[in-house]
C-alpha cells in the first residue's frame, strides 16, 4: 500500500480531531470577519461565535445550501480580496444558475495534493502515463486530476473529453496506464475498444472515475471491457472539485480527506443530524480553503459515513458510494403500483 502523505493519511484519530478543532475555530473566525453573507446569517440567528470552541459546536451553525450559493452569486462568499484569488471554476448549471468557486494559490495546491493522494492510493506513481479525459475549462474534473497527476509525477495527457478516435490513438501510442474520466465516458471508450478489438494494444491498468454517481454493476462492466481496476473519486465544485474523497485499492468506501474536510450526514428532509452509519445527505465543511470556504454545505449526495479500522491503514472517515444526488431522484405517481418486498 502506498501513500502520498502517509503521516497525514494515517494520523491517529485523536491527533486528527485536535487538528480539526484548531482549523475549524480558525475557519469560523476568518469567515465571520471576512464574509458579510456569513456574518449576517450567523448574527440573524443570534449565535455568538465566541461560543464556538471546538468542532463539536458545529451543530450550532446553520447549513449552507445551493440556494445560498446562488443568491451569493457571483462573489458574495469570496473570503479573500480578489487580488489574492488566482482561479475560478464553475458548476455546469444543469440544475439552475451556475455556482462560481474561487481559489487562491494555496487552495490550488491543496486540491492538487488531494488528487495526488487519490492517484497514489489506487496504485499510481511517477512511472505512470495518466490520460485525463475529463472536460477541461470551467468544469473541475480536468483541472483537478491534471494537477494531481502532475504532482504525482505521472506523464500527463490533457485530452479533455470527446474525439474518441484520438483518445484511443493516444492511449495506444503513448501507453497510457491510468485513465481519468466520467464512468459513462469510460463505458463508451470500453465499447469502442471492444468493437474495434483493440484491447490487446492497450497498457491501461487502472481508471479513476467520478463526477457522476455510478453503480458497482457499471464498475464491473468497465473493469471487464477495459481490463482494468476502476476506482471512484468524489468531489464537487462548491467544496473544491474531485479529490474530497477517494477509493483505495480495496474498493470499499472512499476516505474523506479529513485534514481538509469535515463530514456530517443529515436527514435530507428535515436536516436533523444522523448517526455515523445511517444513510442521509452528506454535509461538508472546508477546514483549510481560503478563497471559498463553506461551512456545513448540504451536498444533496446521499450516502453514509463510517469510521472503522481500514485495511489500507488510513484513519480518515469513509463514505459509501453515493446512491445519487437528491436532484437525480424522481418521484413517480402511479395508480397501479405493485409493491414487492
Amino acid at each position, binding site marked *: 500500500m502506498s501513500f502520498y502523505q502517509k503521516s497525514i493519511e494515517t494520523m491517529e484519530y485523536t491527533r486528527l480531531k485536535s487538528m480539526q478543532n484548531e482549523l475549524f475555530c480558525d475557519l469560523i473566525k476568518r469567515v465571520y470577519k471576512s464574509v458579510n453573507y456569513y456574518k449576517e446569517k450567523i448574527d440573524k440567528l443570534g449565535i455568538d461565535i465566541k461560543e464556538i470552541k471546538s468542532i463539536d459546536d458545529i451543530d450550532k451553525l446553520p447549513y449552507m445550501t445551493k440556494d445560498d450559493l446562488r443568491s451569493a452569486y457571483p462573489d458574495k462568499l469570496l473570503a479573500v480580496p480578489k487580488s489574492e484569488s488566482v482561479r475560478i471554476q464553475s458548476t455546469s448549471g444543469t440544475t439552475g444558475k451556475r455556482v462560481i468557486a474561487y481559489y487562491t494559490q494555496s487552495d490550488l495546491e491543496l486540491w492538487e495534493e488531494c488528487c495526488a493522494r487519490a492517484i497514489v492510493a489506487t496504485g499510481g506513481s511517477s512511472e505512470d502515463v495518466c490520460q485525463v479525459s475529463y472536460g477541461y475549462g470551467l468544469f473541475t474534473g480536468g483541472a483537478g486530476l491534471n494537477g494531481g497527476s502532475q504532482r504525482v509525477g505521472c506523464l500527463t495527457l490533457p485530452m479533455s473529453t470527446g474525439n474518441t478516435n484520438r483518445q484511443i490513438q493516444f492511449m495506444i501510442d503513448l501507453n497510457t496506464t491510468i485513465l481519468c474520466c466520467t464512468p459513462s465516458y469510460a463505458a463508451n471508450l470500453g465499447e469502442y475498444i471492444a468493437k474495434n478489438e483493440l484491447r490487446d494494444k492497450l497498457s491501461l491498468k487502472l481508471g479513476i472515475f467520478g463526477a457522476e454517481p455510478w453503480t458497482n454493476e457499471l464498475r464491473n462492466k468497465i473493469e471487464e471491457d477495459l481490463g482494468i481496476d476502476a476506482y471512484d473519486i468524489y468531489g464537487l465544485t462548491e467544496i473544491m472539485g474531485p479529490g474530497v474523497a477517494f477509493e483505495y485499492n480495496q474498493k470499499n468506501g472512499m476516505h474523506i480527506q479529513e485534514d481538509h474536510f469535515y463530514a456530517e450526514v443529515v436527514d435530507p428532509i428535515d436536516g436533523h443530524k444522523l448517526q455515523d452509519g445511517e444513510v442521509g445527505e452528506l454535509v461538508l465543511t472546508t477546514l483549510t480553503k481560503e478563497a471559498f470556504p463553506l461551512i456545513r454545505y448540504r451536498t444533496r449526495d446521499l450516502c453514509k459515513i463510517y469510521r472503522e479500522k481500514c485495511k489500507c491503514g488510513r484513519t480518515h472517515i469513509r463514505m459509501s458510494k453515493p446512491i445519487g444526488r437528491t436532484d437525480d431522484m424522481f*418521484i413517480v405517481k402511479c395508480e397501479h403500483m405493485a409493491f*414487492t418486498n
Partner: protein
Amino acid sequence: MNIWPSQIESVLIKNGYSSNYNIFIDRINNNDIMDVVVETKNQTEDENTLCREVLLLENAIKDITGIKVSVSIVAVGKIERSEGKSKRVFDKRNLY
C-alpha cells in the same frame, strides 16, 4: 414512488445490457408513466426474442422499483453516447 436512475442502471447491466439507456417520464390522465429505452444486446432482432426480453426487463425493473414501466429495446448506437456527465432522464412533466 421514489426512483433513482442507478436502480435502473444496475438492473440493465445485471441483465447483460449496456449502460446506454434513457428514462422518459410523462404524465397522462393524472397518472405518471415511465419509459425505459435500452439498446439491444443481441445481433439478431427477431420479434419473439425482443418481446421476451422486453417482458423480462419490465419484470426485473418492477421487482426493484415497485412500479410498472414500459421498456423499448432499440438498435445499438440509437442512444446518444455521453462524453462527460451523462443525461439519461428526461422528465417531460416539467414542460407543462
